[in-house]
């Protein structure tokens, strides 16, 4: 039997070989080229990159926007997943349709829809003025707030679904048992429900954060060139400036962040799994 299970292991070879050649090798070469100088290995391009204050601002903005997007998505997603886990029949269908249907609308159309809403003569401003909250149009398009709201909207399903699937499987009798033993609701939530739902929170947050640091279409439609992010710098250096070394360096920085997020979240998920 052992011989056969070894043969079965060979079935993984085509898929792995494909990914290794078409996906991992190009990324490795990109990283390698970014530290390759005229004579030997060098970190010069990174020193240049981080030495420029503009680049540091862009890096910081990218991380801040991604973090705020993840937080906003989490704040909406957690109670929603909680309500979904209790929903039945038509309400459950409504929740599921609301999560899945927007995925069929491409990210370009979604981001563009948000840019229509945020315009100074757009729907939100007209409404705010009509109900008298403000007299003059509030500038929303081209702001970081608009970007965070739009991005959170696009990535929300990826935050809700993992949390929902964890909370749903959570044994309902556990919080009740805690309650019958005299635990206060706050104690029940912080000591029972929250820790058990953390794997879903980690999975959803890691996914949302990595999508948010690398998003390109959403910022280019909602904030445009005024507030660059790392992805927009990459696109600009390759597609418009034709400055490949610069583009490769920024790509390597963004890639390093993404790899860190993947490794850190899988380490965290492993630890959470081990604790339970």
């Amino acid at each position, binding site marked *: 039997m052992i011989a056969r299970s070894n043969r079965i292991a*060979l*079935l993984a070879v*085509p898929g792995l070989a494909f990914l290794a050649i078409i*996906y991992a090798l190009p990324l490795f070469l990109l990283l390698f080229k970014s530290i390759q100088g005229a004579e030997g290995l060098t970190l010069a391009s990174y020193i240049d990159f981080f030495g420029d204050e503009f680049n540091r601002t862009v890096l910081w903005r990218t991380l801040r926007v991604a973090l705020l997007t993840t937080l906003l998505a989490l704040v909406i997603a957690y109670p929603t997943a909680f309500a979904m886990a209790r929903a039945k029949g038509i309400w459950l269908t409504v929740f599921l349709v609301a999560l899945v249907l927007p*995925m069929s609308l491409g990210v*370009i159309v979604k981001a*563009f*829809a948000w840019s229509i809403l945020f315009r100074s003569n757009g729907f939100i401003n007209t409404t705010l003025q009509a109900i008298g909250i403000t007299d003059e149009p509030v500038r929303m398009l081209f702001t970081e707030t608009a970007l965070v709201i739009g991005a959170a909207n696009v990535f929300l399903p990826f935050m809700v679904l993992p949390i929902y699937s964890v909370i749903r499987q959570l044994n309902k009798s556990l919080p009740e048992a805690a309650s019958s033993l005299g635990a206060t609701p706050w104690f029940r939530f912080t000591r029972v429900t929250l820790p058990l739902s953390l794997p879903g929170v980690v999975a959803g947050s890691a996914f949302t954060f*990595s999508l948010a640091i690398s998003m390109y279409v959403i910022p280019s439609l909602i904030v445009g060139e005024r507030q660059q992010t790392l992805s927009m710098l990459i696109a600009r250096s390759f597609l418009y400036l034709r400055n490949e070394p610069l583009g490769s360096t920024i790509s390597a920085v*963004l890639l390093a962040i993404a790899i860190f997020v993947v490794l850190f979240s899988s380490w965290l998920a492993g630890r959470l799994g081990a604790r339970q």
Partner: protein
Amino acid sequence: MTQTDRITIFFAWTIGIICIIFLMLPIIITVATSFTSSAVYTLPPPEWSLRWYRSLDRRSGLWEAVQLSLNLALISTAISIVLGTMAAIAVARGEFRGKQAIATFTVSPLMMPGLVVGVAMLQFFREIGLRDAYWSLLLAHVVITLPFVMRTLLASMGAFDFSLIDAARTLGMSYPRAILKVLIPNLAPAYLTGGLFAFLASMDNYPISIFLTDARNKTLPIKMLQYLEEQPDPSLAAMSSGLIVMAIVVLVVASRTVGLNKMIDT
């Protein structure tokens, strides 16, 4: 149920309903603007009209882009299903170290920055002398679709009872035939879900494709962003509304055959 419980549940439902409205908002905006008579995006539309639906067939290059995107999405999803099935069986049944690492690796393209993957592939394809845009795009789209297929297949094969395969083999089926006749029908929901999400991800991909297209091979998202920059009239909203109707049909079929809850569970 205590008072605090009721408040918590009320709070969760309030946020949940806000969340539903928030998620549906872009769809509502898109559909509403598609029926406008105006040449610019205004809300609410000054007058209702179907002119942007009629204008769709005059859009040059749009149908070519739709065809190319459908072609790439279908073929790359099919390739991913074959490669993914084999790899997932190996992880579920093989005896070797590093299964977790394989799972992380095969799903990792989902979390890598699209533009960076696109740049890296562009440079790599240039170096090995692959200059054909269609083949570059197809290889890239297999990388886009494979993680979605892998994610659902790994989860569902972990729960699959492989003694059914052994039983089929005892009854005289060959291994590949047993996979085809027993495993795949049993995991139909996972295939439908993984395949659907993979298909959508391929249809929607902009950041990787932008580096691999040429003048003759432009995928739908690239064409759409180009239109938005050149002449942003509501015909794109009309086309997207058409896609939404198609998605609703697919969702109704999927919920009848698989069940929505099962679909998102894997």
